């Protein structure tokens, strides 16, 4: 591996891998870093670990596809550093990373953030109880260690991921107690065919019909238009309460509840770099502004994949290729316009169904009762935030200073959007105008020992 690179790609998911392969094909040699031990990102997590067998089969063809992509990425010979965390980024670009418990810092001319998306936190009363987790986290356990919950699981929320997870879980012999679909009524039921497309692209629009059949055949109880979901218990979740569309409140014994309300771009790094962001009403999140080749408002800083706006894996790959081409041009490697045309066509195709999907899964914005924990790190409730808003009338940063909300190790990843929403409701102003927390480094926790060992230009361990 070279010790110096002009280009850093952060993230080895669909976008990062595609950009790396593209740049390598053009004769450039970027460095790819990724937090995980193996390439593939979230959607193709640990695909190298499951080349054959039941898990591979259960995870379905869209997961199997990852094996080929990862192989192509490996074959490109690109410099790849797994198990590496980016924790700070400075203009210029001085990049601070940690690997094997040692911090190091290097300079790059161009940086591509292909850091993807995170699940939108779904704060409901009781969501911090043991026994409640996100669908995404449950799926990671499925992919990395084929872990299947012992008890039948309840799944609550909206979006394509719960459907995919339920199908995967059923194939591996798991049991589903029921799906509490919180998609606003009127939308529910029409969405399945689009769920597949949301994850992979338009070509799969009608493959989703197969999911629907599978879930129906398995007899998964599917309750539509559900609201007021609560996990109840002392030390751990003991009961589940929800209200169905006929206004009847139900309470059932339950030990495991998986939540999911869609995904949102990871914006901490672009916020920390003071990039411009726009509020997307359709996706209910801030999206960093990028030009048509993926460059942010900071020259030389690029974005690809779901981090540049949710579009699914195929769109992420196309955006990765486009950003790779853009970086090549930015660094003076001649015209890439013919490649660009091709990549743009793939992107258009992958995104064609997106407006439909966004319309079908509008951000649910379910009511957040006062007793709901908003900030898990500091254990602050929605009521605490509303009281602080009432008293101080300040923006997210003032509320943070007054309450400590967002000061914990998650850096506001769990509470940022909830605070934004509560304040926008309290002040009767737009989500965009309300804004987000100012992001303080480090982007990911780094130990005192790691930082103490920081050395400029130190060869990565």
């Amino acid at each position: 591996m070279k010790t110096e690179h002009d280009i850093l790609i952060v993230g080895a998911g669909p976008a990062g891998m595609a950009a790396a392969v593209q740049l390598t094909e053009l004769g450039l040699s970027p460095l790819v870093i990724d937090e995980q031990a193996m390439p593939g990102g979230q959607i193709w997590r640990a695909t190298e670990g499951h080349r054959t067998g039941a898990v591979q089969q259960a995870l379905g063809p869209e997961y199997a596809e990852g094996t080929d992509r990862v192989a192509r990425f490996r074959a490109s010979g690109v410099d790849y550093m797994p198990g590496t965390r980016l924790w700070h980024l400075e203009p210029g670009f001085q990049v601070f990373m940690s690997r094997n418990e040692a911090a190091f810092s290097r300079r790059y001319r161009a940086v591509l953030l292909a850091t993807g998306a995170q699940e939108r936190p779904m704060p409901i009363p009781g969501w911090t109880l043991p026994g409640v987790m996100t669908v995404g986290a449950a799926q990671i356990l499925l992919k990395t260690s084929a872990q299947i919950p012992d008890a039948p699981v309840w799944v609550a929320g909206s979006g394509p991921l719960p459907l995919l997870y339920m199908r995967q879980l059923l194939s591996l012999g798991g049991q589903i107690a029921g799906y509490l679909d919180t998609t606003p009524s009127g939308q529910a039921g029409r969405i399945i065919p689009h769920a597949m497309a949301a994850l992979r692209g338009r070509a799969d629009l009608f493959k989703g019909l197969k999911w629907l059949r599978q879930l129906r055949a398995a007899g998964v109880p599917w309750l539509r238009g559900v609201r007021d979901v609560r996990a109840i218990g002392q030390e751990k979740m003991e009961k589940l309460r929800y209200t169905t569309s006929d206004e009847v409140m139900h309470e059932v014994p339950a030990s495991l509840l998986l939540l999911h309300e869609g995904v949102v771009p990871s914006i901490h790094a672009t916020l920390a770099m003071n990039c411009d962001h726009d509020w997307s009403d359709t996706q209910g999140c801030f999206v960093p502004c990028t030009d048509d080749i993926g460059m942010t408002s900071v020259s030389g800083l690029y974005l690809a994949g779901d981090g540049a706006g949710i579009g699914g894996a195929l769109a992420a790959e196309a955006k990765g290729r486009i950003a790779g081409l853009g970086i090549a041009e930015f660094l003076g490697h001649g015209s890439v316009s013919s490649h660009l045309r091709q990549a743009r066509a793939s992107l258009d195709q992958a995104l064609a169904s997106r407006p439909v999907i966004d319309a079908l899964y509008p951000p649910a914005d379910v009511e957040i009762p006062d007793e709901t924990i908003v900030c898990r790190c500091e254990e602050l409730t929605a009521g605490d935030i509303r009281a602080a808003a009432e008293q101080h009338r300040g923006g997210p940063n003032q509320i943070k200073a007054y309450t400590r909300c967002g000061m914990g190790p998650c850096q506001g990843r769990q509470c940022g959007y909830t605070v934004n929403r509560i304040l926008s409701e309290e002040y009767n102003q737009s989500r965009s105008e309300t804004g987000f927390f100012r992001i303080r480094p480090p982007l990911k926790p780094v130990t005192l020992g790691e930082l103490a060992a920081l050395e400029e230009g130190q060869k990565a361990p």
Partner: protein
Amino acid sequence: MTASDVIIVGGGLHGLSGALHLARAGAKVTVLEGEFVGRHASGASAAGVRTLGRNTLEMPLAIQAMDMWHEISELVEDDCGFHAHGQLRVVETDAQIAAEAQRVSRLVDSGYSNEVIIGQDQIRQLVPGLNPKFIGGAYAADDGAADPHRTLIAFRATAIRAGVSIYEGAPVQAMKRDGENWTVQTKVGAFTAPKVVNAAGAWGARIAAMTGEIIPLSAKASMMMVTERLTETIRPVVSIVGRSLSFKQSSQGTLVLGGGIQGRYDLDSGRTAMDFHALAKGAAAAGELIPSVAGVRITRCWSGIEGKTEDLLPVICPGKAAGLFHIFGFSGHGFQLVPAAGAAIADMVITGVVPDVLLPFNADRLTTQGAVE
């Protein structure tokens, strides 16, 4: 045009404390804050309440302030998270302990009994897990630390209850004296009062310049690191002689590490940026102090912009123009002085006489230029 008796420019802790004391004395006070209360140095403070190692010129004011901190709820109806768990400065060598002993004995000769020299057994008792290479230190048992945000909330709320009007998002654009009154133009309108207090921190010299007065002032942006919560308890605030480190545990259990390591800042935008290569030295010093903290995760780093004078003492004095008063440039150690400095400036504004405790802080010491047209 909004009229009051005193306009305070700057909604940091010194501005709020001055406002509170003035309002309690019967004045109608307006605070004009460019961004929001505590946005810069006050909100980014390590909130050390320290007499340990303080410049002796500040000691008379610091002693007053310390008495007020120990009864802080009398002033602001909240304890501000203040705990008098002591401040400790440890040393490694015999030469260092001798120098500290000499310093403390000079203090005693001047009549101050706030510090004592203690040995290795005592420092190890005070700081569990302390690296055995430290052999003793200087200790101020009545010192401690507060919670900067609670302190801001308390001073702000008490000032408002005392009748102070606070305008946030009201940066001052111009100041003009007409006859007996100042007119202060801000983004949200004009304010008028016979007296103006310039408590604008790092921007104090810019405010002074609006009145034609030039005061040399630079700035600093001391960086802070906060970690995840620790299960162990370390009560005093600890520093190391000759090293840039101040180490304390907050009441939340997190470690708050500072010590004056400088980040980058921009006065125009008000933004700061970290210098992690410099901060790495602070992290190394923390690990040297208590080796077991090396595995503790840093969750957040920040800094705030603070005014800094050449001799690191504040400017607290009447301005060159009539009805103008300055209080800024605390150079990174103004938090402890907040309650007493506010009382002293209120006294000066009301009587027009400079109290003895403020005599060392005249801006003239920094310049021979005086007023410039």
